[in-house]
């Protein structure tokens, strides 16, 4: 029976935590770190509670098709804020993905989730959907339609999707002149470190300006940016939803593409993708043929900010603006990267960086969560928007496409269209003004 096999996988995953001596000891240190527990107060919606539900399924005391297991495993944001505070080192994120695979085997995923995963996992579908999205965005229709749809109830998902689409417009980095008499950067001498960049699904579809800024700023910092032909979506959304097979299918394409590229580093400009790709080894833990290759790629993956700070980053021209910076969970909690993006921003003269209060808490975007859970994701998002606005900065700034859209759409709902930017966009503008791109 298929579900017995999948239950077996959850059992094996929990057992592996025990073998690695990382079992949950029920201390409860994770409770205050959990955005859903903080808002609902129900321990079923806490990391400890969810681990307890997983254990109950493995012990045969709880049916994986039960409402309790389905609802509370599904309601997790997957932000992994519980991991750094866990004294026992439970690898919660990895367990959650297997628990979701178990839940999906017992009861199929909702249609919306399945549709989103199908789109993200297919290049042709992506190009059609994002092409249409860009058209709606350019014509200003995304905003018009979002305003017309009901605020809650049915249609809330579509409204959120449209409002996120509108929020993916360029942020309000002030334009400035190129420095008088500026000349381009000198030719690179000798051999440079070869860096491949991940295009990503949402980034390629809606944030090509961030991808271009990523390539330009890496190049300006002495890296040789090489193409990674044949690459695909990283599989993060699939893994988070428990579609581990789908995630592996996509991961294999990226592993092959990276191997072909001849690069030694894979720079990623979306925290969510980076978190999944640095865990590619775990994804292929039981696959002898792919495991080592996956681990090698995982070790080569770095957030673009980490790559940039290794060589500086080079200082550019003044860009006078203030930004309210928010830490993406999958950078801070999942990858332990906190300072690098701030260093990138601080390398730009004139930027006033203000880290938002509670920047360590999820914005409610969480991959496709904002669309699949518009109510709770919206509530968490509102708190984040309050915190962002309290900084009174010119614009919000965060290095992850999902968070940029979630925070941006929350700002739009308040009639604030200052937008959200990625740190490399500001660095890029600074370099442009300095004339490095001449």
């Amino acid at each position, binding site marked *: 029976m298929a579900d017995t096999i999948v239950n077996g996988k959850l059992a094996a995953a929990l057992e592996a935590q025990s073998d690695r001596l990382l079992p949950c000891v*029920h201390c409860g240190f994770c409770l205050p770190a959990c955005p859903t527990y903080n808002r609902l*107060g129900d321990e079923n919606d806490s990391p400890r509670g969810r681990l307890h539900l997983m254990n109950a399924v493995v012990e045969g005391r709880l049916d994986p098709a039960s409402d309790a297991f389905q609802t509370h495993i599904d309601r997790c944001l997957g932000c992994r804020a519980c991991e750094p505070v866990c004294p026992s*080192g439970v690898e919660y994120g990895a367990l959650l993905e297997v628990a979701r695979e178990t839940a999906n085997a017992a009861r199929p995923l909702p249609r919306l989730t399945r549709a989103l995963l199908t789109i993200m996992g297919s290049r042709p579908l992506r190009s059609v959907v994002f092409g249409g999205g860009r058209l709606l965005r350019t014509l200003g229709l995304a905003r018009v339609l979002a305003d017309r749809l009901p605020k809650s109830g049915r249609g809330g998902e579509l409204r959120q999707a449209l409002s996120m689409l509108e929020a993916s417009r360029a942020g309000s980095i002030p334009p400035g002149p190129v420095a008088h008499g500026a000349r381009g950067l000198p030719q690179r001498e000798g051999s440079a470190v070869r860096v491949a960049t991940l295009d990503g699904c949402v980034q390629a579809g809606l944030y090509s300006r961030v991808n271009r800024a990523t390539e330009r700023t890496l190049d300006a910092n002495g890296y040789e940016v090489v193409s990674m032909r044949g690459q695909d979506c990283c599989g993060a959304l699939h893994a988070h939803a428990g579609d581990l097979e789908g995630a592996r299918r996509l991961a294999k394409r990226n592993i092959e593409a990276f191997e072909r590229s001849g690069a030694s580093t894979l720079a990623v400009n979306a925290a969510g993708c980076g978190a999944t790709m640095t865990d590619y080894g775990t994804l292929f833990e039981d696959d002898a043929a792919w495991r080592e290759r996956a681990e090698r790629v995982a070790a080569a993956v770095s957030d673009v900010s980490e790559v940039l700070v290794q060589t500086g980053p080079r200082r550019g021209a003044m860009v006078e603006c203030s930004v309210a910076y928010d830490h993406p969970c999958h950078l801070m909690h999942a990858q332990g990267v906190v300072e690098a993006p701030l260093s990138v921003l601080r390398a730009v003269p004139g930027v006033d960086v203000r880290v938002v209060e509670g920047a360590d808490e999820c914005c409610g975007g969480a991959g496709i969560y904002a669309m699949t859970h518009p109510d709770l994701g919206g509530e968490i998002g509102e708190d984040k928007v309050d915190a962002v606005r309290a900084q009174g900065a010119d614009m919000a700034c965060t290095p992850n496409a999902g968070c940029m859209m979630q925070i941006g759409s929350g700002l739009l709902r308040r009639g604030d269209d200052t937008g959200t930017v990625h740190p490399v966009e500001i660095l890029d503008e600074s370099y442009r003004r300095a004339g490095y791109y001449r």
Partner: protein
Amino acid sequence: MIRSLSPDVIARLRDIVGARNVISEPDRLVVYESDGLTAYRVSPLAVVLPASTEEVSAVVSLLGREGVAVIPRGAGTGLSGGALPTAGGVVVGTARMNRILSIDEADRLARVQPGVINSRLTTATEPYGLYYAPDPSSQSTCTLGGNVAENSGGPHCLKYGVTSRYVTGLTVVMGDGRVVELGGAHRWAAGTPDFLGLFVGSEGCFGIATEIEVRLLPLTEGVRTILGIFETMEAAGRAVTEIIGSGLMPAAVEIVDKATIEAVEASVFAAGYPTDAGAALVIEFDGTEAGLDEEAEAAARCCRANGAREIRSASTEEERVALWKGRKKAFGAMGRIAPDLLVQDATVPRTRLPEVLARITEIGEEYDLKIANVFHAGDGNLHPNILFDRNDQDEVDRVEAASKAIMTLCVQVGGTITGEHGVGVDKRQYMTLVHNETELDMLRRVRRVFDPSGLLNPGKVVPDPDGAVA
């Protein structure tokens, strides 16, 4: 015992607190079957999450009329099973009562709801130059309501005292749902009976504190921390006795033993303690800057005089965190050398520490168990950590027997069965080691004053009159 709640009672509970805040499906109650002590599992009939004194009162009086037991629960981090559900009971959780109601800067008081997390109170009062002193190791997650119920301590309670010293007033919902005000910084008439003192530490058996007024302290100006490395536990113990005996007033004096050092250093939490050491002693002084260096130096002299082979000292916050790391991360690190861990808690006169520790080592050998010791040495509060695997029933039985031997030992040398984790269900059987039947009866009668029907957290703390333990 009541086996299920009628749909009518559930509907009325939902009316009081809102449908989302009543959990009654059996599948969703599994998560509430244990607190921080997982050796016991009992599912409640329901979990109710009220948001105010009025809601708690309405819930408790409704359940009281139905004859249903009430189990108060904060963050569920307790280590003695104080929030373990009783069969046929309903858990009343304070998770939604997490508002700080007022901070009175001039009078250095704060009023909070019971679900406020200990460390969040200090975060909120720091801008006023104030902090909340009791610092249990779980302070980043445990609630002040739970702290009141357990009369919680922590490393710095050596100098500053435990929770009861800081609680100045309480709003309490009693067992029948009536609401009373106990104490109050401005309204308690000195010389009248101290109901507040009775209530703090009553482990949820006297009522549910729904508002808590606490005293705050001004933030300390300076802090000095030293780490002494010793060849033997005995030498470290002698150093502690000399430090306290010399009249010094450290804020904290903590010891970790050889087994703990080995566990920490083998884990990702490695703190750089030498693994061949017999014991490491962390001593901290705080207060006004003037004199701190002299105090730290005097303590270092006591350590050297008692054979410390190395002294490290910290003056910056970064260095301080590094010295504390081996102590603070001890529990997590132990989870990494054995799948299960029983954190015991007992207190002995400080001067008897060396012999008690030697005897605990023997008990470990006798029952073939690994026991690692971490403790608040300044006040003789021991935490023997017994490492085991719950899948090995024989080992579980030996853990039980060793625990009893340790408790008996601590009482024999003039100590007691708990220092700060409370009695709960786990230590209930040991109450007869420290109290005679007259004293226990007195406890039962005091409990009835607050909770005449006996429906609040039944089966906890006090053993039944015939000595039988349920």
